[in-house]
């Protein structure tokens, strides 16, 4: 622990800490451009020069490249250091266009800050400024090379941190150009971070360009809804629409970065189709009227068929407050236990996945990035949880061995071993890979006798996990019960949706699955259904098919889903940007999002595209949406019931894992409760037999396969038009007679419920046999788990 003195204040830092970081611990911000917490030192900008007046290093040195050592005395405001930094700024400004008034970075520009704080105000140098031609880098990042100060942050992030090669530095001397060989969209699914990283306006957020100055935006800490990892973001709102999303630092979760799905999938809160007013039997009515009618109809139903004929159904993209309010209402009214998951098994599996996260075994996302061997089971990181891929990349850069067992073709920007196994073989893979490395070869042959191509990979996995000091296992909930009881092995689950963990924590053990609910509706045992922020057509096609049998369908939602269209009564709710709330990430970490804007139509629409309206005497249009928890509470009052004032706190107090937590004051980094006694792991679901057909594997795309993302215009624009693309192993296709001639891109039909969905079939050899990979689009939500022999046919 070196002890040093910076600007007269003593600080003690861990060995290996650079002086610039040591100063940061004291709150001293040494100017910097190239140094970044996540990327480390480059020594390129020379901006962080400070004076070392005593100790092992003497004189003017770069604080980012000098490790803190005992006895150092550092002066950041030494006249020589100040003069040197001013010269550096002056040199950087020699070629900077100084176009701050039209630059999107203006106002949150590091170069602006350092120029002004460094005291450089007058240009002395004669001569012309260097100019460049810019490139079109795709829909997300705007390129303005003239503003570049060559800090190499973008190149280091893009190539070293992320492992993509299509963008980088070219040429030498002061002609260095950061770009691609030719115009084209950046291939890196984390490229949006370039806008956050770039200390100037060279690389800016293209969709947010010219939308607003940053200081004009409302800003609030938020949590990403677009996968289960719970990355921290900052939402910036302007004129009642989210102008942009930025990464928010959380050392335990996403570090400094987020993925492009999280960054560019907002916008669903401002679409014109969003339900903004209450609807009663298809007609827009004042909210109070709809609520009164709803209470009356629910009371009538309960009287006629008993309260057990009413069910409430919670979504997996709601905040925990909303989920808790639904549970509290069901309990108070004596309705059926609320349903969240597709099946009881899925709920039990998700609960079991959290229950295994005992303190010695639970790993955060950041800890996955520091593991030295990771076995990923049933997750395609780049698509199921993109930031996991970035964490794996960091582990891999530090020398970790990465093994991914997944039926789909897996692409990752790092060296890894892919074991293409169908889900039914996951337990076998798990058993072999976590078993004794000496017996791995024999065990692989015994457990997977018909897949000799997997044996070497399995042996590597077993050896890597056995030799590792910090091995980790990334798994899907279905495997929770099969996990080995070994505290050495860190665990990190990847769940289905952003609030799956929240639902699993809160749902009562007797909660039915959506499939049971569908059976009850079909049998007439359930007559009224209250759906809170869920789309039945995507989440439970079986239930959606029997909606006609219901006497009353009530939907509370903020997305214009088909379920909303089918509802008798609609109550509009607010998004996470408007109401905030608590979300549980896949590792059970509870994190709070703050509201950033008020509900209501975006001004752009309210003002018909012109200046914001100046009519102050009228109510703000589109402000009917209210937090779902609030609406459910009002509904309870309408039914003459009283819900607890804080349903989540009340519910949490009764759950051992959450009891005693102060949910109103969660720490900035989130809080991971101990999950002891959450629920006993259930026996693993019976493996599906694949003999009768192809097992259906749903896969996510980077954009617009998560539910909110499907309604985000920008994310939607990234999807390809045309029929969904299916993936099948080439040998399976041959066996099915689908591999002739048009081997790639064959037009097929897929039997989905009672319809035939047109699709395009692609073949691959980098995937498991006996499975068909299907995109997670609502059109294909109704596929059976096993596709029958006639399920896939030539069109």
């Amino acid at each position: 622990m070196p002890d040093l003195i910076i600007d007269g204040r003593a600080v003690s830092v861990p060995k290996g800490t650079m002086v610039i970081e040591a100063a940061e611990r004291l709150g001293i911000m040494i100017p910097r451009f190239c140094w970044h917490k996540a990327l480390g030192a480059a020594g390129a900008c020379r901006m962080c020069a400070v004076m070392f007046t005593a100790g092992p290093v003497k004189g003017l040195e770069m604080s980012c490249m000098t490790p803190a050592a005992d006895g150092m005395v550092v002066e950041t405001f030494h006249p020589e250091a100040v003069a040197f930094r001013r010269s550096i700024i002056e040199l950087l400004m020699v070629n900077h266009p100084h176009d701050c008034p039209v630059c999107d970075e203006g106002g949150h520009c590091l170069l602006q800050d350092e120029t002004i704080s460094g005291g450089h105000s007058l240009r002395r140098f004669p001569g012309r400024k260097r100019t460049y031609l810019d490139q079109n880098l795709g829909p997300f990042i705007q390129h303005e090379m003239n503003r570049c100060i060559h800090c190499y942050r973008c190149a280091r992030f893009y190539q070293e941190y992320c492992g993509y090669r299509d963008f980088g530095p070219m040429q030498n001397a002061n002609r260095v150009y950061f770009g691609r060989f030719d115009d084209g969209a950046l291939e890196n699914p984390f490229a949006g971070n370039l806008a956050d990283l770039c200390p100037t306006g060279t690389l800016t957020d293209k969709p947010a360009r010219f939308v607003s100055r940053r200081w004009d935006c409302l800003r609030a800490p938020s949590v990403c809804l677009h996968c289960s990892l719970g990355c921290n973001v900052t939402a910036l709102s302007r004129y009642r629409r989210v102008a942009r999303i930025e990464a928010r630092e959380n050392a335990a979760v996403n570090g400094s970065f987020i993925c492009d799905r999280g960054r560019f999938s907002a916008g669903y809160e401002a679409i014109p189709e969003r339900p903004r007013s209450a609807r009663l039997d298809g007609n827009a009515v004042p909210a109070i009227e709809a609520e009164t009618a709803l209470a009356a109809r629910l009371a009538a139903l309960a009287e006629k068929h008993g309260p057990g004929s009413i069910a409430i159904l919670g979504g997996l993209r709601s905040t925990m407050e909303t989920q808790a309010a639904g549970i509290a209402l069901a309990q108070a009214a004596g309705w059926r236990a609320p349903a969240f998951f597709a099946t009881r098994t899925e709920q039990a599996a998700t609960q079991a996945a959290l229950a295994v996260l005992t303190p010695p075994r639970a790993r955060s996302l950041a800890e996955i990035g520091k593991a030295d061997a990771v076995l990923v089971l049933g997750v395609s990181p780049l698509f199921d949880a993109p930031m996991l891929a970035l964490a794996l990349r960091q582990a891999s850069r530090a020398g970790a061995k990465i093994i991914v067992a997944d039926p789909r073709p897996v692409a990752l920007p790092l060296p890894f071993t892919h074991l293409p196994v169908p889900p039914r073989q996951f337990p076998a893979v798990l058993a072999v890979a976590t078993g004794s490395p000496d017996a791995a070869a024999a065990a692989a042959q015994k457990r997977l006798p018909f897949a000799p191509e997997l044996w070497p990979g399995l042996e590597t996995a077993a050896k890597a996990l056995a030799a590792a000091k910090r091995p980790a296992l990334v798994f899907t909930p279905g495997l929770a019960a099969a996990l080995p009881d070994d505290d050495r092995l860190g665990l990190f689950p990847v769940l289905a949706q952003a609030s799956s963990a929240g639902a699993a924590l809160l749902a009562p053990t007797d909660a039915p699955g959506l499939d049971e609910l569908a059976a009850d509706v079909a049998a007439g045992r359930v007559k009224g259904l209250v759906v809170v922020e869920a789309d039945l057509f995507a989440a439970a096609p079986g239930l959606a098919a029997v909606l006609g049998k219901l006497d009353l369908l009530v939907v509370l939602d903020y997305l214009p889903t088909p379920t909303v269209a089918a509802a008798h009564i609609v109550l509009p709710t607010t998004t996470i940007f408007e109401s905030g709330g608590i979300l549980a990430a896949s590792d059970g970490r509870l994190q709070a999002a703050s509201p950033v804007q008020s509900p209501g139509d975006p001004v752009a629409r309210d003002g018909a595209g012109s200046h914001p309206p100046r009519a102050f005497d009228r109510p703000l249009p589109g402000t009917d949406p209210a937090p779902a928890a609030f609406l459910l509470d009002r509904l309870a009052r309408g039914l003459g019931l009283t819900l607890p004032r804080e349903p989540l706190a009340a519910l949490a107090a009764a759950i051992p894992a959450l009891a005693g937590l102060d949910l109103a004051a969660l720490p900035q980094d989130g809080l991971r409760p101990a999950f002891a006694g959450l629920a006993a792991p259930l026996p693993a679901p019976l493996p599906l037999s694949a003999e009768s057909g192809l097992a259906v594997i749903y896969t996510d795309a980077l954009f617009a396969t998560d539910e909110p993302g499907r309604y985000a215009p920008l994310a939607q624009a990234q999807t390809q038009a045309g029929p969904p693309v299916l993936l099948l192993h080439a040998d399976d296709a041959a066996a099915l007679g689908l591999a002739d001639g048009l081997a790639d891109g064959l037009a097929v039909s897929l039997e989905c419920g009672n319809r035939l969905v047109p699709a395009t079939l692609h073949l691959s050899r980098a995937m498991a046999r006996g499975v068909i990979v299907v995109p997670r689009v609502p059109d294909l939500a109704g596929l059976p788990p096993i596709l029958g022999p006639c399920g896939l046919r030539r069109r």
Partner: protein
Amino acid sequence: MQVDTPQVLFKNRHLGRPATLAEYRAGGGYEALAATIGKRTPAEVLQLVLDADLRGRGGAGFPAGRKWQGVPTDHVGTRYVVVNTDEMEPGTFKDRILVNADPHLVIEGIVLCAYSIGASEGVFFIRPSYEGDAELIEQECRVAREHGYLGNNILGSDFSFDLHVHRSAGRYICGEASAQIKAISGLRPNPRKGGPRTAVKGLWDCPTIVNNLETLANLPGIVRNGPAWFKALARSATGSGTKLYSVSGQVARPGCYELPIGVTIREIIFEHAGGMAPGKTFKTVIPGGASTPFLPEALLDLEMDFDPMRAAGQRFGTASLMVFDQGTCLVGATLSLMEFFARESCGWCTPCREGIPAIRELLRRIEGGQGTEEHIQMLTDLLPVLDKAYCAFAPGAAEPVRGLLTHFMNEVNAHIVQKRCPFGNPPPTLRGKACGTRPIQFGPTPCPEDQCPI
């Protein structure tokens, strides 16, 4: 040719063509190798080099033996020798002449180095303009292989080492050891600082010794005749061996001369190089290649050796003397050096990437008669900034400017007062075209380097 000083490296230069293997062997060639392989341990060879105090001839003067000591002895896997022949320092041309005089001397030196550090592969990194030399080395390597001096089982022993030629893409920065390793690996040749040294983690992350060609060419002599002989070659107390001095500029006989380390600059210019060219009067000399400062006449009796030069505030560098006469405008001379440095910067750090072009712009103005007192102040402000650059490139580039401002300020002032170059040089182009440096797929850039104004 001089006969009064011992010719070790240039023993066969009198032939006027590359010496053949037979000619090299006739003069005792490959005896050192034969006496070493299988007879001395690598550690003994290393000790010989340490005792001989052989210092790097590429400019920095780092003791070669100490560099080799850094190679981890317990490394399992390949070790590499990289022979630095990326001779791009303006005014330096010794390696080209040495290769052309005695290619087998070079090859023997490389094999001895490889034996000492246990390397099995060598890369002969050569600048692309030396294509003839590259082909010569390739051809002589084939000859050496045929005779068992290179390749598998050298001289029938179990020591195997092979050398292949890597042509540089032609950038000055590729002469820096860590940048050279990156260049060979196909990466951007930005120098690397911090982290393990190249001797520990170099080419393909394996231990790698990068040495200048001339350094390695001294090895056969050291091994054959012993360290004492080598030290006795030098004329100064601290130096050892001989050195190839490239003399260019306004002298009667410009050329490359092998002279002992420690001869005075005066002796080199006025005896060996035949004095000033007819009708020219001495003004100044750059003693060690483009990245060393101008040396005033008062220091002409300085011994050409690493330590005495440093003590006098000068740099030995590559011992390439560029001699200027009274009729040469030093502002113009400095400007043309800056044109070179501004073009060759790798573009990594601010002082180098932005600072050198700024100096060039100011010198262009002064040389063109548009300079002001303020510009001199700016130059003075820039020099300490260049000294704190990432690698040694920018500090080297600052040296001629510093020399100009220290010793020849009157010449700079004359430009400013007369508003023209007092030597009658035409004004340099002040305004180039705006440089659209856009990468076009695998084609020429719209701004070729020799026309690029920035």
